[in-house]
């Protein structure tokens, strides 16, 4: 089958690899019909995530049709022919954390738990196609994928919905929604969201659903800011101001936004001195992360407010204004998305036509074009917001 493989920093290639097999009783094999490139895949592409190995199949936003089911799964749970969206986190459904609905912290799904325990003290759940530290599972930018614990994760959905309407339930829609939920929004609140990528855009819509009165969206690409504006946000191009924090305070009567969301993560851009220091440190591999958005969140947030962090970070970070964080009495909420908590309720929103997630899509291409789309997406060329890959179409050039 065709699969997008990580072959090194800035090297993705489409390889012909063996089809996946059932390895455990609770596995299923899914024939993938739509799969996407996620912003967090760009961290892999740029080589900033530790424990990738050459040849790893990437991709964690996919959906398709079940073609094989392991002996440990009953037919009511899942059967051949079911159309499913597969969440990017892998969860067993049996451990303490799954029972607490902290699905992305599942205790049993990461076979390489020892790497994560070494790095973080404890291991989060396994993820598809996202480093060996997170399990080393083959990803879903391929024609088929093996889905472990398939009686827990994959969401069946009814007839009449297109791939484009449901595929984002695999990651970015629930991630944006949980990001907004983590903002502790109360009616009338103002929420500032850094990053108008797909997660940021879903977070804007979700924040309004959860009762926010104002959403301020921050980015530097006009086409993304325009999408944010269409979603109902007030927009700020941070490149047009020297003091973003002051600007946000000015926009909120000196209070600062009630909640600030870092939907950017480890590879934040910027044009001020602290950003340049981060950039140099990251290039010298002294640090995996460039935390300048998080710094701005702390400085801008209103006293007693909440910071939500759906953006992905990799490791140790310094130069965080922790004293400011403490003295302002802020709360920080973060984590990989507890997918199974959100997929069903959000599917209902889609079915009720309250939201059409396909609004984020900017590119639909055959899987063969994945390597070049990584570059396009990374460099924000061609107004790229979200790339959906068709694993079965062949490109005209080939």
């Amino acid at each position: 089958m065709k699969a997008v493989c990580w072959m090194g920093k800035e090297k993705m290639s489409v390889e012909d690899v063996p089809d996946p097999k059932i390895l455990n009783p609770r596995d299923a094999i899914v024939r993938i019909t739509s799969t996407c490139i996620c912003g967090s895949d760009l961290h892999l592409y740029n080589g900033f995530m530790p424990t990738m190995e050459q040849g790893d199949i990437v991709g964690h936003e996919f959906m398709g049709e079940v073609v094989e089911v392991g002996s440990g799964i009953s037919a009511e749970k899942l059967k051949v022919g079911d159309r499913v969206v597969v969440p990017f986190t892998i969860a067993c459904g049996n451990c303490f954390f799954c029972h607490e609905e902290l699905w992305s912290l599942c205790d049993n799904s990461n076979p390489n738990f020892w790497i994560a325990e070494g790095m973080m003290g404890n291991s989060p759940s396994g993820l598809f196609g996202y480093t060996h530290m997170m399990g080393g599972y083959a990803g879903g930018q391929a024609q088929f994928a093996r889905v472990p614990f398939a009686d827990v994760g994959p969401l069946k959905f009814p007839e009449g919905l297109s791939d484009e309407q449901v595929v984002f339930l695999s990651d970015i829609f629930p991630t944006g929604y949980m990001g907004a939920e983590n903002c502790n929004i109360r009616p009338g609140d103002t929420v500032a969201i850094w990053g108008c990528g797909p997660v940021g855009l879903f977070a804007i819509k979700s924040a309004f659903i959860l009762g926010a009165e104002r959403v301020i969206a921050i980015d530097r690409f006009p086409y993304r800011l325009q999408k944010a504006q269409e979603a109902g946000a007030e927009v700020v191009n941070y490149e047009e101001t020297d003091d973003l924090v002051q600007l946000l305070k000015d926009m909120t009567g000196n209070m600062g936004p009630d909640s600030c969301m870092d939907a950017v993560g480890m590879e934040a851009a910027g044009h001020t001195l602290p950003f340049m220091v981060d950039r140099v440190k990251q290039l010298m591999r002294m640090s995996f992360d460039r935390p300048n958005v998080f710094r701005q969140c702390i400085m801008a947030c209103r006293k007693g407010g909440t910071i939500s962090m759906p953006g992905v970070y990799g490791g140790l970070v310094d130069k965080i204004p922790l004293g400011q964080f403490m003295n302002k009495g802020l709360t920080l909420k973060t984590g990989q998305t507890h997918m199974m908590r959100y997929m069903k309720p959000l599917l209902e929103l889609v079915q009720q036509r309250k939201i059409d997630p396909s609004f984020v899509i900017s590119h639909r291409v055959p899987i063969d074009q994945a390597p070049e789309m990584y570059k396009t997406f990374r460099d924000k060329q061609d107004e790229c917001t979200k790339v959906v890959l068709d694993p079965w179409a062949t490109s005209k050039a080939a």
Partner: protein
Amino acid sequence: MQIGLRCGKAGVSERKRMRQNAQRNTMDKLFYSAGIHTSLRKRKDDLMTRYPSTRITSYDQESSGTDASARILTLLAGAGVAAFGLTRKSATRIAMMATGATIAAFGAFDAGEATSNTACSSAESSIIVNVPRERAYAYWRDFANFPNFMHHLKSVQVTDGRHSRWTAYGPMAKEIEWDAEITEERENERIAWRSIEGSDVEMEGSVEFTEATGRRGTLIKIEMRYSSPGGGAGQIAMKLFGKDPSFLIRQDIRRFKALLETGEVPTTEGQSHGPRSAVSNVFQAINLDEPGKKGPGRTNAARRRVS
């Protein structure tokens, strides 16, 4: 009931995986001494040394290759300082030669000591398993289940109510066998066992089951101790288990937890991947247990690039 069926099913693929794990340990040893790692394996070793506090188990080992080589290094360093002293002027020469000789003496003394010891290692670990105490106890009480989560074991045959015959994977496709007996048994509380006298491998172990706080299931504490009176298969066993017993036991007990909670042990062994790097391919190509047989997930035949 469901669990029992699944475990039986998992058994077959488990065995295959165990073999690979045993082989990997051997490979680690071989390549470690030659200073070669795959990036991932090196990272594991780095992590284990850099963040020792993350081990929840204690680890003591009276003799290990790393210690011995450190001492030999000391010896060489001392000799180096002394030799360098020879090239200096009189006063410095004497001072440096004296210092160097002292360092070398420490090294020589230690190096001699390090290689003459009998080997012994022990490890302990604990974990909360989200199942009732009776179930955890019952699964452990059937020693034939051990290879399902202790991947260095090929099989454990229960010969009678108290006795069992253990077969472990050793380096170079050798198998090591010994007999063990149960020395203590308190239902749903504690099991202890040890190898019978005269075995090549002297081992003892115990496991305790208590209610975890907050109704989180069963707290399991395990202790294992291996020692070898020197020479023969026992020494080989030490090399296998001696690498880092606390790491191995931690893996075992995590697998036990996964098996009881979910009915299977999570794995990626045998999944597909694209072409690996040259170093990684060497690791996969050399298969000491079954030379010439390719490992699972190999994609050399599929290296063709899709245009």
